[in-house]
């Protein structure tokens, strides 16, 4: 089922949670709503579920206006951040709840409910735990019961609020791979909220990045990571180094170096902010004209295949984070306190008048 969110605005008192949001979620996609806390991502999810009312705007399910419908009529599966399992019911009763509360005419028989619940237990790999109570399960197991319970009603859309937020790192990784596989099997339109960019990049077909109630960018994980459209997205997705500089006739001057930026050939003496990812630096031992920034090494972390360096620029005193491969690191034989020369290979420039950070 496709979902259209049209001009949706939501206030809580004087706080604007969503500010004129427009978004289309195509059938069968797994979409991540990504943003910091207070960005409106959970509010948007709850509005899709019908747990919050919009102040303005329209929600369409499959092209049909659903704005005025209550949560109970929307046929959504909602997985809550802290699972919200019914604590006085065992796993079986939890999963069967959505089927048992149906009006008599639509209610499946006892046998059908039994079969359906066991089929779901198999799907979420919890066979044999049907008689346990929620408090007897681990976090990951509870999460899967919550998912099975949501899937039992055969929802038209699956909504997940920070589904892995309360789990430890290892379980989280396993579960999100499993969710991805499950989605590939079931092809149910799914939306999940997360503040963890790695999680969004790892699982989603498309990522919606929200900030202060607005959509900053929308795209595939590659698109949003490789081509951030706003300074916020650049900052939010992955580590980044920020440089202040000035653009003049196709050249940007950052401290002691100048870099060609042909797309700004006609810009005259304007302030600019540039972003460089840590892995987009070249590191040399020798100076080469004014292309390289001299910096001394403050700290080296050489655990794993990638070596992290913390450097201090000698021209402006700003700190720079850089990453390089282990081979290159061995080749250069870097040591803490030494002076090296760094060059940004890839540089993204924003002119601050257009964007407010």
């Amino acid at each position, binding site marked *: 089922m496709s979902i259209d969110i049209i001009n949706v605005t939501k206030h809580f008192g004087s706080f604007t949670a969503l500010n004129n949001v427009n978004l289309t979620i195509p059938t069968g996609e797994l979409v991540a709503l990504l943003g910091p806390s207070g960005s409106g991502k959970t509010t948007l999810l709850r509005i899709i579920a019908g747990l919050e009312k919009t102040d303005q705007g329209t929600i369409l399910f499959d092209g049909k206006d659903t704005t005025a419908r209550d*949560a*109970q009529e929307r046929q959504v*599966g909602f997985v*809550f951040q802290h699972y919200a399992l*019914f*604590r006085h019911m065992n796993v079986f009763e939890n999963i069967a*709840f959505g089927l048992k*509360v149906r009006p008599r005419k639509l209610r499946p028989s006892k046998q059908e409910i039994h079969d359906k619940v066991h089929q779901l237990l198999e799907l979420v790999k919890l066979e044999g735990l049907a008689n346990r109570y929620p408090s007897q399960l681990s976090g990951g197991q509870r999460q899967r019961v919550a998912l099975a319970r*949501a899937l039992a*009603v055969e929802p038209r859309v699956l909504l997940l609020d920070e589904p892995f937020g309360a789990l430890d790192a290892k379980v989280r990784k396993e579960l999100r791979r499993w969710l991805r596989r499950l989605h590939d099997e079931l092809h149910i339109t799914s939306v999940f909220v997360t503040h963890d960019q790695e999680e969004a990049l790892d699982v989603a077909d498309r990522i919606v990045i929200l900030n202060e109630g607005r959509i900053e960018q929308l795209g595939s994980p590659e698109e949003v990571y490789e081509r951030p459209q706003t300074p916020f997205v650049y900052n939010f997705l992955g580590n980044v180094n920020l440089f202040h500089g000035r653009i003049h006739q196709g050249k940007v001057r950052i401290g002691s170096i100048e870099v060609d930026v042909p797309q700004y050939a006609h810009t005259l003496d304007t302030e600019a902010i540039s972003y460089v990812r840590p892995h987009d630096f070249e590191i040399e031992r020798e100076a080469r004209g004014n292309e390289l920034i001299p910096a001394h090494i403050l700290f080296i972390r050489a655990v794993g295949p990638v070596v992290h360096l913390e450097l201090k620029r000698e021209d402006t005193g700003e700190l720079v984070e850089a990453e390089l491969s282990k081979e290159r690191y061995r080749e250069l034989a870097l040591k803490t306190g030494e002076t090296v020369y760094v060059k940004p290979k890839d540089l993204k420039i924003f002119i601050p008048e257009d964007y407010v950070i």
Partner: protein
Amino acid sequence: MAGNVPLQHGTAQAAHSLGTTEPPVVRWVLTGLALLYLVIMLFIPLIYVFFKAFEEGIALYLAAISEPDALAAIWLTLLVVAISVPLNTLFGIAAAWAIAKFDFKGKNLLITLIDLPFAVSPVIAGLIFVLLFGAPGILGPWLEAKDIKIIFAVPGIVLATIFVTLPFVARELIPLMQSQGTAEEEAALTLGANGWKTFWLITLPNIKWGLLYGVILTSARAVGEFGAVSVVSGHIRGLTNTMPLHVEILYNEYQFGASFAVASLMSLMAVITLVIKNLAEWKVQQQVKEAGS
């Protein structure tokens, strides 16, 4: 009423396991002091009530609790409980539901109002109703014209009891429901349950032990309320005397044996209440333990 005596098994066990850091002497002295205090302040008076009740023999005891005025007092007390407890239970659930699950203007005012009967002396609570419904009161002449009796009659006693026992259920449920939050209800709604089913299948089972506890406290207070009821009752024997009032009248007439006999009946009710209360708490702990294993 002795509703708050710390007799729960679980708490005692927890205190024991945590108490291992103190030297045994300190533990024994403290426990001994607490027990001594309980014995002097609670057990001796309680036993004395039963002792005095049976002092003049079992025949007199039975006569005292089966004479018409005593029976009328018992009956009236039970009637008051039967009306005020269900009403305050409904009100308590509704108020706790509204306060815990919704945000609205005037919420703090409502919480303060619920606490009002705790803050106001029962005598003043009784006077409020006399001033409202009594002959010199605001509604007095109108009621008299319609020949409706509230003050010095059963409705007044019921009203005064409802006023005094109003906070118990709500006070018990508000923190419980607030701590449980609304996520389970929301989950039920998204699974297609309507509001009524959500309440019966999710909310009520989650609060049932807290609710039982609140109902027990309300009942205990409704049985034992003296001050407010005394003001509105008029002390008409066989008509508007509840058990506590009957005890007082007998005592004032130097019928100590009869007075203590009725008092022992009330004490028995209190003990039974206490046992049910502890059973409820024990049940909750069993559930928690089962769930935790």
